[in-house]
């Protein structure tokens, strides 16, 4: 090969680089290690994390069983090691699966179209806001304080320089649901969208219909966000929303210290050309067989460049595939039963504690113990090999006495009883 290239050594291939840019020393990284040592290295790091504890953390990342089929499917090289399916004739596997994914997201959310994934829930909600701004030609976003605090932070980062203005509206101190009066008051004709999460950050089923009424009356779109996709198995889909944006981590994606997850955006047919991200559409091949391909690419950066609906290129395809397998394994009946188990567990736990809010909740709720700060409770629980809930003071100073607890189908009764004891 060197001969063919007309060089003496491969090093010569770099001889045209200006010598001032050349690195004249070796990289200061140790020599390569063997597969066995790599595994050992990561095993040791894993051992430095907590292991084998029960946990009542949720807050956007949930512990659910991961059906074995999920990893079986994504371990197949054909899915794992293929690129974005631009060449449809040799990518029908990925394309078909994404088409099924889009369909199932529509079925779950009650929307007409869904895209092939966004980076995560936080960027999905943010891109939904940008999409609403484009669709309405307005720049103001009203966002519920009960939207995941980190999602709100991302929204702030993205919108800051785009002539958009983000304002928050409150939640009711007793119910934990959105403060419709506050929203009503802040609503104006410049508002592009109202963003509400349901179940909201406190785990409560929020007042979508009221939010929709207010938003629509003001000429704004309603964006409904979710972080706990299992809730869609039992909770009325947000039919009044114009855009639904959320996170699918609950669909067999391991918590993995926060990623990779998969966000989605679903919307009404009329907004499809404002959507960010890839879309797969149905068509035929020259023999008349049904086929799928990436479509409506004129929204995307590789065609439209600075006029694209988003800068997203690489998305979370394999994670979306995992969610697709998850939805297939559970199916119509299973997702319902799974949601019911979550409901039963969280309500069992809640029945032993004092929920801070009176709104209806799915698998998370806020609780406090008079006189016992959350950190103290968590320290006590940790001694029993339990990681407690998320102390809320960090995000909501007014809730510094409270924690957010999540119970899923994986929560054991004995551990919940232990939590109750720690609260008592």
């Amino acid at each position, binding site marked *: 090969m060197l001969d063919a290239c007309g060089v003496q050594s491969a090093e010569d291939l770099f001889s045209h680089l200006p010598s001032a840019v050349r690195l004249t020393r070796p990289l200061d990284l140790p020599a390569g290690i063997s597969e066995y040592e790599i595994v050992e290295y990561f095993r040791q790091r894993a051992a430095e994390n907590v292991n084998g504890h029960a946990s009542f953390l949720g807050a956007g*990342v949930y512990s659910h069983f991961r059906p074995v089929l999920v990893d079986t499917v994504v371990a197949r090289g054909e899915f794992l090691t293929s690129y*974005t399916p631009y060449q449809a004739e040799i990518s029908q596997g990925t394309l078909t699966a994404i088409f*099924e994914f889009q369909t199932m997201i529509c079925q779950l959310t009650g929307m007409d179209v869904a895209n092939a994934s966004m980076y995560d829930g936080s960027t999905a909600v943010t891109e939904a806001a940008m999409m609403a701004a484009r669709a309405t030609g307005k720049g103001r976003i009203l966002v519920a304080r009960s939207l995941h605090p980190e999602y709100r932070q991302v929204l702030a980062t993205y919108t800051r320089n785009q002539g958009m203005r983000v304002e928050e509206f409150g939640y009711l101190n007793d119910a934990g649901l959105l403060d419709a009066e506050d929203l009503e008051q802040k609503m104006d004709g410049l508002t592009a969208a109202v963003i509400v999460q349901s179940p909201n950050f406190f785990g409560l089923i929020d007042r979508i219909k009221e939010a929709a009424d207010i938003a629509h009356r003001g000429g704004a779109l309603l964006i409904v966000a979710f972080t706990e996709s299992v809730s869609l198995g039992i909770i009325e889909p947000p039919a009044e929303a114009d855009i639904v944006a959320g996170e699918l981590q609950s669909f067999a994606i391991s918590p993995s210290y926060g990623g990779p997850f998969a966000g989605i955006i679903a919307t009404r047919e009329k907004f499809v050309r404002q959507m960010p991200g890839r879309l797969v559409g149905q068509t035929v*091949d020259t023999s008349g067989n049904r086929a799928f391909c990436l479509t409506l690419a004129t929204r995307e950066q590789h065609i439209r460049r600075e006029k694209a609906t988003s800068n*997203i290129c690489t998305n979370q*395809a394999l994670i979306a595939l995992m969610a697709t397998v998850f939805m297939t394994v559970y199916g119509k009946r299973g997702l319902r039963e799974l949601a019911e*188990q979550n409901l039963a567990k969280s309500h069992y736990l809640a029945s032993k504690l004092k929920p801070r809010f009176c709104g209806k909740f799915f698998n998370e709720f806020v609780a406090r113990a008079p006189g016992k700060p959350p950190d103290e409770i968590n320290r006590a629980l940790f001694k029993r090999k339990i990681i407690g809930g998320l102390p809320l003071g960090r995000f909501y100073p007014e809730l510094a006495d409270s924690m957010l607890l999540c119970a899923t189908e994986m929560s054991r009764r004995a551990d919940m009883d232990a939590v109750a004891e720690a609260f008592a």
Partner: protein
Amino acid sequence: MITKVRPHLSQNEPLLFERSSPGKHAYQLPELDVPAIDPRQALGAENVRAEIEGFPEVSEVEAIRHFTRLSTWNYAIDHGMYPLGSCTMKYNPRVNELVARIDGLAWAHPYQPETLAQGSMEIMARLEAALAEITGMDAVTLQPAAGAHGELTGILMMRALLEKRGNPRKKILIPDSAHGTNPASAVIAGYAVEHVPSNPAGGLDVGVLERIVDSDVAALMVTNPNTLGVFEQDILRVAGILHAKGALLYMDGANMNALMGIARPGDFGVDALHLNLHKTFSTPHGGGGPGAGPVAVKKELEPYLPVPRLKRSGKKWAWDYKRKRSIGRVRAFYGNFGVLVRALAYILAYGGPGLRNVTVDAVLNANYLRKKLEPYFDLPYKAPNMHEVVFSDERQAKHGVRTGEFAKRLIDYGFHPYTVSFPLIVHGALMIEPTETEGKRELDHFIEAMIGIAHEVETDPQTVLSAPHGTRTSRVDEVTAARKPVLRWK
């Protein structure tokens, strides 16, 4: 003669929704150890949904067959060479998949107390340090989920720095050869985009640049080597011009596979760059993602990095949220951690000398392809190339065959096509990046195929134009798909 593939039977498979039968299911849940609860009571009847219409109902074996059958319709790196230019489709080591699934890592919750997540944090710290060394930069954020996300993060930081200096400025310069994400990202950061024409050699035109860089210019986004696979010879001067005018140099690091251990962006004037861990650092593309797009910056930009930052506090790692000048968050939590684990595994496997070898082999492979194919294809830019080479379809177009059609015929020869029609500055581009993964045998097969098709173009263009012929799905009608979008099953 096609010697690389033969036709074989592959199973058909309906959509899940067509396969469903009422009552079938592939799951079983443990029995509840707490009292069941009436959802209508717990949630309020109005909040309880009806059954999910159309949702799948299949058995476990139907599920596994469904996805197995679908998978067999895909081409993949595990099947053969995947010479997509700009995509760096290299082998994805399987040990990386294993380590990312170790329980203590895979089940770590982002909100578990820092003292209970030291292993995860150490992994991130080590990766940050390795990437800083490879790029020659001072600090790294691992938060961005992909390259484009990294671009946005980088430009936002630059904007913040310029703001701090008194004026965020108005525009970002972007070469006409750049990837589409560059302008798209710049716009989200609130900038106007000005495209900079390339010089006849395909590189940055320093003369032009000197003229247009003024106090309105916030930064130049350069890809180096650029999308022609050509190293920007004048990069030091370019940096000088920008810096002299108070502007910054952003580098799209998608092509870092050409530079590891050879040259470092930090040493040639770059202020910030992103890396695509799903390209250079071998994490699998997974049919489109996930990836990770860490951003490496010089000291001056460090205060602007997204929160939280890893911080050493005593003998422990901690997350530092109190960083006044930070641009904030670009996503929830800390990044695509599972992808970061894989990338670090790759870096550990190769080590410093190994990564340099990766680059040398990648460049050698690309040059070998260039030399072997140059007699048959028009090479619009003749500068020495690094990790990829871009031909044009000029000769083939004379016979009525364009790059997109030529690409489809490659499928019949057993290859995934190269990147078609990019970069835009090459009319009818064939953008070929072999990566270091490919051995001489696979490269020679590819060369044979390319030459074979070039010959067909002259003797039997019809066969090429109607390709692919061997696939279970023949040419897909993308026009109809876009004209009457059917985006879900009904």
